[in-house]
Structure formats: C-alpha cells, structure tokens
C-alpha cells in the first residue's frame, strides 16, 4: 500500500478502519444510528460492524428485517427528522431493491422541497467481484449512483481514506454513498488515530509520473500501482491517480495530470460501457486537456458480462495487473 503518512502510524484493516470511524461517530453523536441486515451480533456479512453492538446496543446498531427498500426508506425518513443513519446494504447488489428510495427520495427531496430540508444520510455498499459469489453478489453499480444529482458517491481505496471519508460523509448535510470493495476489507494500512476527515471530491495522486496517467478506482488503484512498478522497470513512468470520488469528480487533478503526461488510461472494475471510465474519458475529451493528448484515451473496464462463478472466468472479466501493464505499454509506445 502506497501511503503518504508516516510509517509509525499503526496499521488497521480497511474493515477495522471503517468500524473505527463508526465507533467514533456513535460515541460522539447520539443522532448516529447504524442500520442494516445482520450488523448486530453477527457483526455484518463482512464483519465491518463487528462487535459495535456490544458497546452501543441494539437501538444504535439496528438489525433490520430483510427489507432493503423499506430499510432505506426508514433511513431517509430518519435522516429528514434528526437522526444520522449509516445504512449498510449487505451487498451492493441488493441496493437494486432500494433504488426508488435512494434515487427518487434521498437524492431529490432537498431539491424538490426547494431547500426546506436536507437528508444527511450515509449508505455503505460492499461491492465488487473476486469472492466467488457469482453474478448477483459481485456487481459494481457505482456508475448508476454517480449519474444521480443530489448524491455524492465515493470509493475509498485505503484504510486511511475509508475512515477519513466516512467521517467526512457524516459531516456532509447531503446523502453520501460509499462503495467499499469487498476484497479491500482485509487489506491493511496505516490509519491515524482519532477523528479526522478526508475531503469528498478530491482525487489523490498515489504515484507521480510523467509518461502516462492511470486513473483508477477502488481495488483497481492497487492493481494500477502494481502495474506502475513493473512499468517503471521497463522505463515507463506512470502517474497513478486514485479517483476516490465518483460524484463530484475531481476534474482539476485528472486534467492537470493529463496535461502533463498526454496519455490516459482509465481502470475500473464496473462494466466498461457506461462505467466510471466513460465519464473520466469524456471529461478529459471535452476539456482543454484534449489538446495535450498524444494518443487515444484507453479504458480498461469490466467485460460486457455478468460476473461468472468459476474463479478463472471471474478473473477474466475484470482488469488484472497484466492487462494494465499491457495496455500501458502499448499506449506509452504509441501502439494503441
């Protein structure tokens, strides 16, 4: 893991970092409640809430029935009337049941009411493939919510960001959707103690480089960094940007990098067509950075397919380090 922070900071897993953020929030603000399926004694399907119920009890760490639409709606109503719910979908796939409340209600209520009320709601979406759980438990739907004005959509890729951005989300007066890649939950990294926030809407340059820009999201950030190390050995100096926020997207950081490198690859796990990389690409292609482009903008996204069960097939449908390496090499050498 490529962290800016001093090495003496203790390490936590991504899941532990999120739990710590929720612990701080529950401890310091009585309005905060956690809601979700099996987040109580079970500790959550991915053990993110863990034992928080033992500390805060079932009124603060609420197990909901298996009722995603209703549960999300309860969270919306609660957020409108004084609570600060953090709602966990057990898998982001199940949020398909709750799109009505997320998109028609949470995202629009403030606007539709002319600013008369806000909906300070945080929702957490364990997302992505790699666990062998097949097509209905492995999707990446962040592009959908990124398309919805009124929402903010983030995808932290490190434990430090996971904690700091969740705490930022809780301070945000509007609904914030957090996509957490399941494969990241066990990844460890340094995490500052206590309360701190990392701003929503700011990308992070994880590696500076001059030959090409790789903009990646979530788990793909780590694959891009691994590829960049290999590329360096071949004399190609890649800049790796962790987008971190899908909505609102950090135009400035991405464009500055492209102006410098002249080449861009977008790496994301969601389906390529109409995925996050489409927006990154289009944002660059319509900007003044277009004039700096020395090559087409390459997108490396998920295959045009649901996620298969068989592990080899499952790997084949999302970008892997060698795919990034190949694409970057071709692009840097002007062969794309």
């Amino acid at each position, binding site marked *: 893991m490529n962290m800016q922070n001093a090495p003496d900071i203790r390490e936590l897993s991504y899941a532990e970092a999120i739990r710590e953020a929720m612990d701080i929030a529950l401890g310091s603000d009585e309005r905060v409640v956690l809601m979700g399926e099996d987040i109580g004694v079970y500790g959550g399907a991915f053990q993110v809430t863990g034992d928080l119920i033992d500390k805060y009890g079932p009124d603060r760490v609420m197990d909901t*029935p298996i*009722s995603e*639409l209703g*549960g999300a709606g309860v969270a919306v109503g609660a957020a409108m009337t*004084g609570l600060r719910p953090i709602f966990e979908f057990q898998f982001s796939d199940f949020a398909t049941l709750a799109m*009505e409340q997320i998109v028609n209600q949470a995202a629009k209520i403030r*606007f*539709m009411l002319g600013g008369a009320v806000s909906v300070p709601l945080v929702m957490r979406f364990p997302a992505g493939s790699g666990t062998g759980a097949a097509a209905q438990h492995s999707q990446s739907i962040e592009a959908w919510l990124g398309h919805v004005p009124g929402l903010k959509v983030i995808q932290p890729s490190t434990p430090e960001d996971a904690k700091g951005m969740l705490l930022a989300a809780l301070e945000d007066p509007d609904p914030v959707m957090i996509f957490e890649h399941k494969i990241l939950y066990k990844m460890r990294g340094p995490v500052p103690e206590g309360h701190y926030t990392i701003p929503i809407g700011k990308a992070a340059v994880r590696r500076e480089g001059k030959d090409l820009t790789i903009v990646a999201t979530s788990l793909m950030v780590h694959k891009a960094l691994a590829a960049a190390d290999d590329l360096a050995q071949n004399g190609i100096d890649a800049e790796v940007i962790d987008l971190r926020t899908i909505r609102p997207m950090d135009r400035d950081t991405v464009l500055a990098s492209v102006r410098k490198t002249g080449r861009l690859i977008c790496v994301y796990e969601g389906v390529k067509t109409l995925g996050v990389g489409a927006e990154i690409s289009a944002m660059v292609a319509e900007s003044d950075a277009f004039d700096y482009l020395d090559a087409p903008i390459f997108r490396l996204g998920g295959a045009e397919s649901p996620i298969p069960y068989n592990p080899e097939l499952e790997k084949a449908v999302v970008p892997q380090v060698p795919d990034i390496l190949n694409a970057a090499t071709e692009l840097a050498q002007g062969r794309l």
Partner: protein
Amino acid sequence: MSDPNTPYAIRTYDAETLKDALRKMFLIRKFEEGAEDSYTRGLIHGTMHLSIGQEASAVGSCMSLSDADKITSTHRGHGHCVAKGADLGRMFAEFFGKEDGYCRGRGGSMHIADVEKGNLGANGIVGGGLPIAVGAALSAKRLNTGAVTVCFFGDGANNEGAFHEALNMAAVWKLPVVFVCENNRYGMSTSTEKSTAVKHIADRASAYNMPGTTVDGNDFSAVAEAVDTAVAHARAGNGPSLVENLTYRWRGHSKSDRNRYRTKEEISDWMARDPILHMSALLVEHKVMSEADVAALETETAQVIQDAIAFANASPAPTAAEATRFVYTDGEAA
C-alpha cells in the same frame, strides 16, 4: 355531552376546534376547485390530483396532531397539507411554480411539503412515503420527542412492497406511527377488487399484528375517532395501527381520466354522501353552528382562496439561472 349516542367529535372537541375543522374542509374543497379552475384556464403546468370528496379523511386524521407531529402525504395531498395547517397562498404559489411556493416552485403539486408544520411532503411515488413515515417515527422514538407520525396512503399503494416492509418494521420496532389508508376504491382506474386480494385494506393489519379499523371516511367524526385512538395508542408507546377511511374521489384520477372504469351512478351516489354537508349537518344538529354560520364560513373561506390565488399570482417566478440550486446543501445560503 356525555350521552354515548352523541357522536365522538361532538363529545370530544370544543366548538372552536369543530368550526376550525369544518373551515379546513371548506378550504380544501375550495383550494381544489380553485386549482381546477386555474388548470382549466391554462395557468398550471403539469398534472393535478384532486381529493374533492375526501375532505373528512384528511381533516379527521389530523385532529390530535400538533405541529411537532409529522405526516407523510401522497400525490393526492392538498387536503393533508391544509389539514396540517398550511398557508393557502404558499400552496397556490407552489402550484403556480413560484418562489413563494412551499418548494420555491421546484416541486409543484406532487411535492408540496410544509416542514415547519410537520408535513414531510407529498410524494410522486405511490407508497414512497410509507417507509419515510416509519423513519420519522424512528427518530421520534430514538430522540424521545413524543411525536407521532400519520402516514397517508391510498388503496392502490397497499399493493406496493413498500407497504409491507414499512408496516412490518413499524410493528417489529413498535414505533409511533399511524398508517391511514384513504381507500377511495380505485388506484387510478384499477378497483380494489381487481388489485387487492382482501376486501378491506385494514384486513391486512393482522399480518403485522397491529390494530386495524375500517371506518366511513366521509364521516368526520368516525375518522377522527379511529385516528385519535390510534394516535393515542402510538403516543402511549404501544406501536402502530392501521386505519382505513372508506371514501371516494369525485373527480377523475387526474386531468386525463376518461372515467371508463366506473359508472356515473357510482359517482353520483358518492356525491350524495358529501363529507362537508355531512359535517355541516352534524355541527348544526348539535348546535355548534347555525346554518347561517356555516354559510358565512363558506363565504369567508372562498375569500381566503381568492386572496391566496392573488398572493400566488403576485409571487415572483424563479429564474432559470437558479435552476440547479438546492441540489446540494454545500455553499447554499440559508
């Protein structure tokens, strides 16, 4: 007044309260007639769902609510909004898409809310308000505000999954919420017989282990009695109830309705059961008001509507430059 044959409303409320209730019923009727008239004259953009004929349900259901209590409303929500104490001028202004409207012209008829009075808003999504109401009740319970939420919804909405999920959660968590179904026999064109496996929506209360009552929704006193009881039940910490008000909308579903799914006779039968006439008669019979008082009230409320329309007409329209304001709170001036 303690004669048990005396209707609940007469036994329970003082004269001022009863007059105010009738006044609200007049205001709803006249607001909607005014809205209809504005629509016909091309002043309104969009659609419109009128609740004429259902006034007793809206007003009767809000009798024991204070401004701290909440309601969630529906696409057919003008009545609920007035019943909860809204200003008619701001309602018309919203209808006309003006800056003084409750939503500053951004929401229109289907989204009118009056947060200060506890109306969390109409909703364009059938059933959309049901879980939101449960969320408001959850806030009340957790934050110990003592508030109760009344959740209005239609017979059509009772077949949405949201209904099931919301009622179940409210029951499991024993939340202070009253589900008020305004059963006007149709969801758009589809009768309850064709859409709903039970005769009465309140028959479904048993599936959530909560009290369920079906009342004549055109009888103000019957509605008030049922909902007051349910509100008291909720307020005492005993959890949710389901009240079904049997009523009827006189007008089409919206302006595009050809009324092919019901008969003229059915409509006129129900028009003969006008909830406002019924309420007026009740108050006259029990000497709360004279016939002349009622007539005066009618005249007074007609004037309120005229003034409200004038206010709305005079209100400025939002400017296109501000079209995307209010999407996010950040950087927004309060």
